[in-house]
Structure formats: C-alpha cells, structure tokens
C-alpha cells in the first residue's frame, strides 16, 4: 500500500528534526462501496414503490438503527478514544474510518428519512388527526436540527480532513482542528439521537 508523510507541529515550528508520520494511501470516497450504496438505494426505491408495511418497516428500522447507533458510538465511544490516541495512530485510524463514513452516513440518513416518510403515510401517523402526529412532528424537528449540525459542520469536516490528509504536505494543526470539530459535532448529534430513541419507541408503542 502506498504511503505518504505528515510532518508534526514540532517539525513545522522548526523544533528539532522533522518528525514524520506514515500515512496510508486511501480514497476519499471508497469506490468499492459505491455498488453497495446503489443496491441500497434501489432497495429503497422498490420499498417505497411497493408501499407495503414490512419493506418500509425494515428499511426505516435498519436505517434508523444504523444512524442512531453510529452517531452514539462515534460521539460517546470512538470520539473520546480518538482524542486520546497519539497523532500517528489517529491519522491511521482517520484514514481508515472516515472514507467509509463519507458513504455510510448519507446513505443511512436517506434510507431512514425516505422510508420513514412513506411508512408514516402508510400508517397514517403523519395526518394531523392521528394521536401520534405530535410525536411525528417532534421527530421532524429533531432530525432537522441534527441535519443542520451534520451537514453544516460534521460532513464538511469529514471531507476536509480527508482532503488535507491527501495533500503532499498535510497540516497537522488543520487536521487537529477539523478532527475536534468532527468529534464534538458527532457528540452533539449523538445526544440528539437519545431524543430520537425516545420518540421512535413511543411511536412504535403507540
């Protein structure tokens, strides 16, 4: 596997000999994952077109569970661990984890939202006369806030850190800053996922 080098801040400041980090080669968007995304999206279109309960439940529950668990795990388990790793370990972990996140997160979010809307239409919970309508609207609001945080801060930081790591001379301080932003926003969306769990279990319980 091809590798590149990242200079540490000490080296950039001219403090002693350059400390170089090995950086594995990687693709910002892993092309091998694109066919899997295509299959998932085709399944989503088929599920919505069929408008049957089981496929819609399956897509919404699987997508939503993946979205919630990934956010919680990243925000409260992996995030703090990444913050304590040495810089070389963090760089290696980042180059292996974050390209996958570029594909996984938009896909699970799209599947969850599109299947969720269709499921809600199928069950009638999006009608204002439904006793659960307030909970459905609450879920829209939670998702809306999470979307603004994720799309405005988290996703751009994810792509930017990978682009920085692709450069011949990546700037460790830029990577550090973007990684902090990624971890904090993952924590914030993780917290909001607890609200999602409350709402969704209430909706399932009726």
């Amino acid at each position, binding site marked *: 596997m091809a590798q590149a080098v990242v200079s540490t801040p000490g080296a950039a400041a001219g403090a002693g000999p350059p400390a170089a980090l090995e950086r594995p080669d990687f693709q910002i968007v892993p092309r091998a994952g694109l066919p899997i995304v295509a299959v998932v999206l085709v399944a989503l279109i088929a599920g919505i077109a069929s408008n049957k309960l089981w496929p819609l439940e399956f897509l919404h529950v699987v997508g939503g569970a993946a979205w919630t668990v990934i956010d919680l795990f990243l925000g409260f388990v992996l995030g703090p661990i990444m913050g304590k790793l040495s810089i070389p370990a963090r760089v290696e972990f980042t180059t292996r984890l974050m390209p996958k996140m570029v594909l996984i997160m938009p896909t699970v979010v799209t599947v969850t939202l599109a299947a969720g809307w269709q499921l809600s239409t199928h069950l009638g919970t999006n009608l204002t006369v439904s006793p659960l*309508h307030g909970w459905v609207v609450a879920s829209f609001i939670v998702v809306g806030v999470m979307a*603004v945080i994720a*799309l405005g801060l988290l*996703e751009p930081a994810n792509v930017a850190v990978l682009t920085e790591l692709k450069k011949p001379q990546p700037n460790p301080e*830029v990577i550090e800053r973007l990684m902090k932003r990624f971890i904090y926003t993952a924590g914030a969306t993780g917290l909001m996922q607890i609200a999602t769990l409350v709402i969704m279990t209430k909706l399932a319980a009726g």
Partner: protein
Amino acid sequence: MSASSPQTERRLPPVTQLGMLSLGLVLVGGIYLSAHLPEHVSLGPAVGLLAASALVFAGNLLALARVKGFAWARFFAVAKWALLAYALISGMIEYVFLRNHTSGGPLVVLTLSLVLFAVNVPVLIGFTVARYD
C-alpha cells in the same frame, strides 16, 4: 505551512454560519409543510422561509465570490461531487412526495426547498475544504 500562516488566518466571510442559517430556514419550511401534508396547508410561512433561505444563500455566494485568492479550483473539485450526491438524496426525497401524490403549490415549494438544500451542502463542504488550500 503552519496553522498560523496567512492562508489559514485570512479573513473569510462567515460562509459556514450563513450556509447553516440558509439550511435551517429551508428545513423549518420543509418541516412546516411536512407536518401538515397531505391536508390543506397555507403556503405563506413556507414561501417566506424559502425566500429568506434563498436570499441568505445568494448573499453567502456573493460574499464568497468577493474573496481574493480563494481556492476555487479545489472548491469546485469537491463541490461538484457533493452536488451530485446531494442531488441524488434530494431526488429520493422528492420521489417520496411524488409517490404520495403531493401536487400544486406544496410540491413546488418542497421541490424548491430540496433544490436549495442540494446546493447549500456542496457550498458548505467545498468551502470547508478550500479554505485550507
């Protein structure tokens, strides 16, 4: 290059903040409409929020266009792929509305909201990447 170099410390317009504001406005409009569909819904609030979001987005682009020496090549290299991805995501959500026979004014407002959503995110991603170039 260190983080304190002019490239990373130069003054840039608040593109991320404005982009998030524009995104937030269009999402509030979308939530308002979605909370009422498929029943009759007054379009006034959603149109107002959509117009405000479009204005903020246009102002954001104008502010960014005035930045001298901005890494536009890097911006477009990233933003074009992000646009493709988010156009696809918006298309999937539009498909759900069409599947449920949403039509007329609500469909127009929702479609324009999805267009604004699909162009806002690539700007946010492209800017975050290009500002460090």
